[in-house]
């Protein structure tokens, strides 16, 4: 782990209650498998604009709106696809040098 602090990850959806919470749980599972120390939060797109996470995860409807919010933005279409998200996270975190 090349990052010397806990990774901040944000799962977003329209109102920040139902689907982003599911996404948060999927992301937590994926990060546990990757062995990454991360804190995952979930919120709505409005609130997300005022935050500065390392990684944003959401569906295309929302990630398009907040593309510049974080160094890593991951667009998903399946909220329960742990393996798919894990692969994407591994690739993108490695790109940033946060994962060796």
């Amino acid at each position: 782990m090349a990052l010397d602090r806990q990774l901040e990850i944000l799962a977003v959806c329209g109102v920040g209650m139902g689907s982003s919470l599911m996404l948060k749980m999927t992301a937590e599972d994926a990060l546990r498998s990757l062995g990454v120390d991360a804190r995952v939060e979930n919120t709505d797109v409005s609130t997300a604009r005022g935050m500065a996470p390392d990684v944003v995860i959401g569906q295309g409807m929302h990630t398009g709106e907040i593309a510049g919010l974080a160094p890593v933005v991951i667009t998903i279409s399946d909220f329960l696809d742990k393996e798919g998200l894990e692969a994407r996270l591994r690739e993108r975190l490695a790109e940033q040098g946060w994962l060796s």
Partner: protein
Amino acid sequence: MDVIRDILTFLADNVFGQVPILIGLITLLGLLLQRKRFEDVLAGALRATIGVVILFIGVDVFTGGLTSFQTVLASAMGTTPPKADHSLTRFLTEQGGTIALVITVGFLAHVLIVRIFPAARYLYLTGHLMFWVSTVTVASLVTIAPGQDQLTLVLCGAGFVAAYWTVQPLWMRPLMRRVMPGDRFGFAHTSSLACLVTGYAARPLGSRGRHDTERLRLPRQLSFFKDVNVSTALIISVIMLVAVAFADDGVVGRASAEMDPKLSSWVWALLVGLRFAGGIAILLFGVRMFLGEIVPAFKGFSDRVIPGTRPALDAPTVFPVAPTAVMVGFVASTGVFLVCLAVFAGAGWFTLAPPMIMLFFVGGAAGLFGNVVAGWRGAVLGGVISGLVLAIGQAVTWGLYERTAPELATLADPDWYAIGWLLKAADPVVGDGTIWLVPLVALAAMVATLVVLGRSGRRGTADEPEAADAGDKAPAGA
């Protein structure tokens, strides 16, 4: 014996009657059962508790904004604003503990049902709707059988919501299978009846193959509408400004002076729109905070008790399949709702308040299911049906909750209206002494549905239309 009675009275008044404390304790228990670290347990329980406190503050701001909105709009149209002697704030203070217990006991019952009946298939996991459906159910029970003790309300409410959470994803299953052929998760959202009606009504309109919305290109300017905070503030403010132009100066002056005597009524109108949106944002923030702790705890528990069950999830989990259909449904439902607002107010019937969140999620979901059946025409039909249901539902349901929390009519989804009116229809039969019929009939109808579904599943035919029919009958029986 006096000591025991004193302890029970103390618990009833200070724990079961105080939602923040009760939710905090339930979360604490959930986190302890998951064997979380000490600091996570403490922080999680506190976050859940603060979330409930914030929820109450948000409801207060929201209902204040709603009153100004309705007063000015009614004055502009020359009608009387809808009356409210009771408020959601007061109802949550009085019955909040009951609601929290209905969610907990109802969820445990639901887990047990899913464990026993393989045909139940889905575990309902949309936390905020578990909260609101329990609230609507308790409000309806209090309306038809006032003066029940807390234990009766909790058990009757929990039995009813457990039956609803079990059957609702099942009646959406035939439509969901067309959207998500893998059947990895079900649909757990209180827009279900609008979606179901759309799914059947859209059939003659065409086919997805020829009219798929995802081949349309929508104007970029619509995109900011997807942020419900923005669209709520914008639409309510614009309606307020127009209303101020036509309303009685005295009425507007008195209302704006309450906020600040020096304030121009135009700026006041704008501020009311913004505060209304702000109140809803605070309310949602609070709900998000306690759900973030409770839902993973519920899920952790059920994963252990019933490993491998399919979850039933919130509506936006299917939105990536057809985002354009969602926007078409949302825009159509909002348009229809605003037309209804003008027509109803013009006729002097009722001054509606546009519920942007519901117009987005109900209109969007119905649009999506409409598209899967009949392409863009189906999506438009879904939006139109949602707009009509939300407008008519709001107007006719306000009075239903006049003795509990009329604002529940303003913040509602189609299934909430159905539950409210279903229980109201049972009123002549179900009085104070017979309130137990509510959970008993609901659970009996649910078991009958599950047995029928289980039989057709075992025959290996997995006949979808038959399954759909059985699912359809359940809400009428419940």
